[in-house]
């Protein structure tokens, strides 16, 4: 199966920084090809967009990645224009910024990226870049795992695209306990929860090692009991000095629902490193 990577490019500074991730993914995707899609919504002048795309082209050339450009007029809105441009299905991966147009409304909530993640029409990775110096090539990744029965399978697809630069992969399983009971939890109960989490992590670690041929990659798994998984992810990201947090999005934690929305937003807002939110169809 050949993978076609599309960069949803709006001309913002974040899009320039996200472009480096897209280029690096394309570099390791097999066909070394990236398609830049820009919808002319009038936010930036055509000259400035042209200059910026030329800079992306230069970087693509330096990396040895072919860059196609799709500069399309706005039809209805940016989302529908993008959907019309990107072929649907699992052969397409759309890399976009976590904040493209929705100023003042959060980093994902109400954005085009959220809309693309929610529609499940192709694979999507929305990225917020806060450390442009990494140049889209993070060396330490932190994957928080929600305990999904599929384990790391969906994440593996995205990990492989970044894996070439990665030295260290940290898996984090947070066993969430309600705030009220957390302070009264017995030692036996916390021990049992940790064990459950560790078993989950160990299964995934075995699975990953089986799939990866690279033996130099440092992989570590960690289980933490917490009443606040967002805070714990941020703490671990600082503690482990990870350069990127990569998290799966589901309908439950996408900001489409009012009550769950603020969790991902909190990570995107307070992150000490770049964040990628993915969804595999």
């Amino acid at each position, binding site marked *: 199966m050949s993978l076609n990577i599309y960069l949803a490019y709006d001309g*913002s*500074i*974040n899009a*320039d*920084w996200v472009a*480096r991730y897209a280029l*690096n993914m394309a*570099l*390791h995707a097999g066909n070394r090809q990236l398609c830049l899609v820009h919808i002319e919504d009038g936010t930036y002048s055509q000259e400035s967009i042209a200059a910026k795309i030329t*800079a992306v082209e230069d*970087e693509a050339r330096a*990396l*040895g990645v072919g860059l196609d450009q799709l500069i399309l007029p706005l039809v209805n809105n940016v989302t529908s224009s993008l959907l019309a441009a990107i072929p649907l299905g699992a052969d397409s991966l759309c890399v976009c910024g976590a*904040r493209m147009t929705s*100023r003042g409304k959060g980093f994902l909530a109400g954005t085009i990226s959220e809309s693309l993640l929610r529609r499940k029409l192709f694979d999507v990775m929305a990225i917020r870049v*806060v*450390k*442009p*110096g*990494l*140049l*889209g*090539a993070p*060396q330490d990744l932190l994957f928080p795992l929600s305990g999904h029965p599929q384990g790391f399978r969906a994440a593996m697809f995205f990990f492989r695209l970044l*894996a*070439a*630069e*990665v*030295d260290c992969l940290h898996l984090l399983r947070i066993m969430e306990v309600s*705030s*009220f009971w957390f*302070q*009264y939890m*017995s*030692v*036996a109960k916390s*021990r049992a929860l*940790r064990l459950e989490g560790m078993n989950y992590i160990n299964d995934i670690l075995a699975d990953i090692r089986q799939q990866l041929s*690279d033996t*130099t*990659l*440092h*992989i*570590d*798994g*960690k289980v933490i009991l917490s009443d606040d998984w967002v*805070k714990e992810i*941020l*703490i671990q990201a*600082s*503690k482990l*000095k990870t*350069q990127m947090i990569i998290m799966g999005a589901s309908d439950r934690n996408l900001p489409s629902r009012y009550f769950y929305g603020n969790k991902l937003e909190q990570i995107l*807002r*307070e*992150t*000490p*490193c770049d964040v990628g939110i993915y969804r595999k169809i």
Partner: protein
Amino acid sequence: MNKGSLQIQQLAPERVYAVLNSRAQGLNTAEVEERLLQVGPNSLEMADPWKLVRNFSKQFTNFFTILLMVSAAICFVAHGLNPGESMNILGWALAVVALLNAFFSFIQEYRAERAMEALKKFLPQLVEVERDGQLSKIAAENIVPGDVLLLAEGDKIPADARIVVAEGLLVNNAPLTGEANPCSLYHEPCAKRLAECDNVAFAGCSVVRGSGRAVVFATGLRTEFGKVAHLSQAITREASPLERETAHMVRVLTIIAVLMGLGFFFYGVSRGRPLWVNLVFMMGIIVANVPEGLLPTFTLSLAMGSLRMARKNVLVKSLSAVEALGAIHVICSDKTGTLTENLLTITELVKPQSGEAWGDDDKLHLLELALAASEVHEADQGLSGDPLDVAVALKIRGLDGDLAAAQAAASHHFVFDVEKRRSAGILEKDGQRFFVVKGAFEAISPMLSGITSQTGAGAQGGKVDRADQSALAGAEEVMRAMAGRGLRVIALAWKELAADEQFRAGEMEQAKFEEGLTLACFIGIEDPLRPEVRGAVAKCHKAGIEVILITGDHPDTALAIAGKSGIVPIGESEAQVITGDVLAGLTEAGLVAHLEQGVRVFARTTPEQKMKIITALKSMEKIVAMTGDGVNDAPALKAADVGIAMGRQGTDVARESAQIILLDDNFASIVAGIEEGRTVFDNIKKFTNYVLVSNGPEILPYLLYILFPVPLALNVIQILSIDLGTDIIPSMGLGQEPPDQETMNRPPRAQGQGLLTPALICHSYLFLGLLEGLWSLGLFFYVLIAGGWQYGDELASHDPLYRSAMGIALATILLMQIGNLLGRRFARRSGLDRGIFSNRLLLLGIVIQVIFSWATLYFPPLQRVLNTGPVPLPVYFLAWFGIALIFGADYLRKRMLVRRESRQCDETS
């Protein structure tokens, strides 16, 4: 794997601007605004307007506070139904206690924020940048990725930035790495990881010398310093063992109280009693069950424990740490200054091949060479500079050398380079010039072409052997033998510069001279072990506490110190040491496996690796104490169960992040603190037992009242007068009991070993509590019956007979608590053998009980408050008999236990 993509540190300086979408003239205003929106201001704090409110609200989620608030609400309802009983006063009292409790907890949490204030001092207010081709000073908070910084001597660095121009740039990275020596920065690409590169200026660090230009690539919490700040703020310390056990106890007692209260409330309703009577009754049951005074007494006991610790140079910032220190299983200790004196002294100057000592004249000459590669200044308090350099200067003085002349002979100095692990200098003497290098042998050995084998060094001449592989191996063996004796070993190498070798100080390149050197000697520096440390470590081992040494020193030195101090047996193999490099590659599970195998020494570690060790130990369910002094120790100090900062060497950030400050930086003081902490827990157990005993006679009257047609022997105010009044001072007296001899001879208690055990409940409620209840109720009914009361008669609450009966019931409980108090001093001994006068607070408690029992019966103002009345003196004397009764019965139980235990012991032996 293919590493096709580069990061900012790996790029040539000219490419840096482009990849950060910037240019040499800096960003323009529109770009700055857009980036400010994208990544936010360059600040260590996230704006959170609701943080204080949220933290305060959180204090109301614990069982005890909820119970107090609910009880207060019930009181107000009862007052509304029947205003005459003044239940609103009780309601207000309970509400105020709940609020105060929440307020104090909130203040404790709020104080933790001060670490952030200390961290902020490392960042500048204003910085010089180039924007739109103009140089300007702007607020550091407005810095964004892509900004071009201009760095000059004395500047604090506001954000992580890639150096693009460096002119003799030397920075102090101590806040981030803990490394005391400054590091040189360059603009050339670096292949290492971002955090380890010498072409990146990190936020929180400062420029010591030189100037440069740098392009910002990370701001605020995304900088390496920001991560330290984030961890210092975000990591909340886990509840201490005592907090967990107290929470468990409060939960159990609350559930019992509420269930009993509700049960009897509905029973009363079913019997057709008025609603307000049932409410008041329910309140009474709850109040009788809950030891209201216990938690304040915990706090007082911990506060007194902290005062005793302060006398032992252990300053406690958070009260929960007093007991937590007593519960620890592992101490992770630094070496320098904690286990050792931090007084570097040169004890050996040896020949590199044979390991023999040089003669005094040669020593002086070698030290003059070493001084040329050192930087020492005369200051008001003596010599100042790197401790090693100062040790060299002091040794010259000690050998009657002319220090001033030796300093004058040093014509140029190359500062210590952390990366290269060496310093260098040029010595001009007797018309000759020598280039001298001083540093780690591993760093110097590649530059060697010769090794001195006989007497004489440098200008004095002497035999020099070729530095071939076998000679180098021999030298390394000598070096390792010295390190194995616990010495810090520095190699000294030199070469004579040719007379025509021209140089100008400003343009000299150190690298140019660093070849063809001759190894002159090894300098052995000792940082002596504190004399009390060996005993303290032995005490720890006896007390079942493991000691782990974490140091940046060479593994051999670390192992030697660990051996000398008794952390590991002398002669322990090197396999028992884990170095920082190995540690970096270990997974958490791997590290746990090593710790389980008995690894107790970590060498060549970085401060941030402490966090990894703590996490592994905590996953082994150990309670961990960690010492630290640097800025970047702050996260580890917060992550440990007990963070211990050094009072003398420690930074403000470390002190603010720790729970305990060691005023003398001495390991032995930690052990003294542990003994105090264990004693505090033992004493808390004693007074918990003491306080719970009085719950028995408080509950029993309510059970009788609801089940039989008899008057209530104690009202709520009388119960509170015991729980929040007379029991407090005796409890504090028990909290003052000195440590037992056995305190440090038993292992730390296991996690989950509760304060409230079934044995303690049975002893408190079903034995002593029942005894107190029966005797006090016996006298209550004796007074009633003697006064003409008959079974089933109802008495008005202000009936003098009823008041006298209630008075004697209360007085009896108060007096019997004296017998209970004396018995609680020891688990197996009588309690009198230690002498009452040895504990003045205990004596005061007894006096208060006696006076209060008398005043309850015979002092009219108190009679009015408590609704009590007098009884004939012979009856009061019967109440006094209760002291002997409870003390004697308990002593009998202890004797039986001792006999049974010795029988069991005999059987097993």
